[in-house]
């Protein structure tokens, strides 16, 4: 049966609510409306308004309330309505959610999942297309994950909800409607493992979230050039499994890292650094990074010029093949 990523996420929430009555979800418009993207559809109807509830419009309040509720013994899932509105909650996330366990010498656990629809490509107005993942990946104490496929969305969200560490869960919003054949529930894969989505020999593409699909399309297009590209879905930025990428590079000798976020100090820099550290002698060419330009996310009519696409990725592959 074909399911969308949005359905997979919704199903994961329903199953988690069923499994553990300490799981609660709150945020702006998540109750009656079911969220602006309907990811929380029918949760309140089915589980009541003490399990899934609307909050006042206050992101710091939402994240900080999760701290108190987690201390009490709940397992909160919070929704940030859009990526660009996570910033008011940044303080609570980095100063408290991330640090509470460390500060309390292990006595206070923060099993909080912070759901953030992120990334561009949906023609949205300003502040609705941001890729803030590097800020969170840089913050010790948080886990940071993002699915590239519907089935994995189910898997990663379920694992995040039941993780005793806080997880920032980035939902690639332009892939909400992407379909895949899958029957849920599936056996979930643990956080912290990258996977090869398409095997290949010419070069490795490593991506996460929305760019996984773009890279798979690139690999298909590359066949016309006679290139057989391997595509790795990173899945989890923290913890980051560089082993799968290093192994791949040991076979292909070439790596292109792809993400939507601005290139400078983006997560691609981390991937490139790890690979040159662990697979230096396997590299036939410098690691190429393909990302957004170092500008604020552009207006909707111009976003296609900003976002990495098949051609930009193919060009980067060509560059690595010139060495």
């Amino acid at each position, binding site marked *: 049966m074909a399911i969308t990523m949005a359905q997979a996420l919704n199903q994961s929430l329903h199953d988690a609510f069923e499994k553990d009555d300490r799981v609660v979800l709150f945020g702006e418009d998540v109750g009656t409306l079911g969220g602006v993207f309907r990811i929380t559809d029918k949760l309140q109807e089915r589980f009541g308004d003490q399990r899934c509830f609307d909050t*006042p419009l206050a992101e710091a309040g939402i994240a900080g309330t999760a701290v108190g509720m987690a201390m009490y013994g709940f397992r909160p899932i919070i929704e940030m309505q859009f990526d660009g509105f996570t910033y008011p909650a940044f303080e609570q996330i980095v100063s408290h959610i991330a640090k509470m366990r460390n500060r309390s010498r292990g006595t206070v656990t923060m099993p909080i999942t912070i759901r953030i629809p992120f990334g561009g490509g949906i023609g949205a107005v300003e502040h609705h297309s941001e890729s803030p993942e590097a800020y969170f990946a840089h913050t010790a104490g948080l886990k940071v994950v993002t699915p590239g496929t519907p089935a994995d969305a189910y898997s990663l969200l379920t694992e995040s909800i039941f993780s005793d560490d806080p997880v920032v869960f980035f939902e690639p919003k332009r892939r909400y409607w992407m379909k895949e054949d899958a029957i849920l529930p599936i056996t979930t894969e643990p956080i912290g493992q990258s996977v090869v989505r398409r095997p290949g020999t010419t070069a490795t593409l490593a991506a996460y979230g929305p760019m996984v699909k773009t890279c798979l399309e690139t690999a298909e297009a590359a066949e016309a050039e006679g290139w057989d590209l391997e595509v790795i879905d990173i899945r989890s930025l923290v913890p*980051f499994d560089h082993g799968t990428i290093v192994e791949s590079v040991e076979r292909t000798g070439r790596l292109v890292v792809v993400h939507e976020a601005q290139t400078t100090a983006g997560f691609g820099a981390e991937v490139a650094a790890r690979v040159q550290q662990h697979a230096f002698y396997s590299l036939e060419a410098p690691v190429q990074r393909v990302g957004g330009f170092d500008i604020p996310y552009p207006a909707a009519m111009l976003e296609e010029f900003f976002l990495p696409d098949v051609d930009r990725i193919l060009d980067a592959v060509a560059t690595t093949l010139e060495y």
Partner: protein
Amino acid sequence: MNRSEPAALDQRYLQLLPPAEPVQLLDDDGVLHENPDFPIDDLGPDDLRNLYRYMVVSRRIDKQAISLQRQGQLGVYASLLGQEAAQVGGAYALEDRDWMFPSFREMGAAIVRGLEPGQLLHQWRGTWLSGHNPYDSNFALMSIPIGTQAIHGAGYAIAAAFDGEDIVVMTYFGDGATSEGDPHEAMNFAAVYDAPCIFFVQNNQYAISTPLSEQTRAPTIAHKGIGYGIPGYRVDGNDVLATYAVTRRAVQRARAGEGPSLIEAVTYRMEAHTTSDDPTRYRTPEEMDEWQRRDPIARFGAYLSAEGLMDDELKDRIDADVETLASGIREEIYEAPHGDPMELFEHVYVDPPAEFADQRALLTRELDAGTNGTEG
């Protein structure tokens, strides 16, 4: 002026407004003026003596902490001198099962709660980021970013209300914190969910050097509650009985399911902001003298003596007990371990990332080679 306006206002909103004068039960000379709205008839002689003892202990431990800082035993310390009545009176209105979410100046509230003061000093010493397990005492960890803990308290109270648990949460912050966003989000959340949460503001007149007059144009801090539909109380924070009575009323409201309250305890910080601060740059000796006359311990001591609840012998005994306590803390801090470097990697994640193995190994090698810990 439209004289009919107040009458036209909905009575419910008028009830939220604080009275013009802070509630005071003991005047500056320690004479009791009872107020039927804020009774203290549940306080027996032992309670009264406890209140006194807690204030004296708080002051002595505070003094001890400052001298430990001067000796280089603590990195920095934030004094509560002058705020003993606010902290002790407020905390005494809670039950053991209730929770407290402090800022960083609440040593007095912690002492009422029964925490070992030495435990709290580890944070100032810099050995660990905090020294106690909050679940042992229902006293959350001190929070350094201003005002952020208010919303944790609200969240805890909301969770407790969902579970039908009969507890009240008290969260502490200062006058400066009322300009930050988080306490306002916290008051609003707590109000929307009728959470059993008390927002206890110690208005000690300054946020480091910034006086209240440069912090806000609100008539008083207690007025801020009205914006959230929660009652604001103003109380003389140097009057332990009034602080107790006002807090008890807020506690009763919370227990009755009537939701949160905002309390402004009007007080004064007699010491520097922290041991790193120089208050002579921003306040005058005249102002200090003015507040010295309202000293919370002297005032309450005078009352107890006049009522025959404390004689010189009892007073001396309390002072001697407190000296013993202070020297115990001195010993404890002198002997406290300096922190195990390998603990750096503990307690960051339940499930640590693989990189920790390499980073731990690096630190172990540095320690073994003796190259670590030297300042560059």
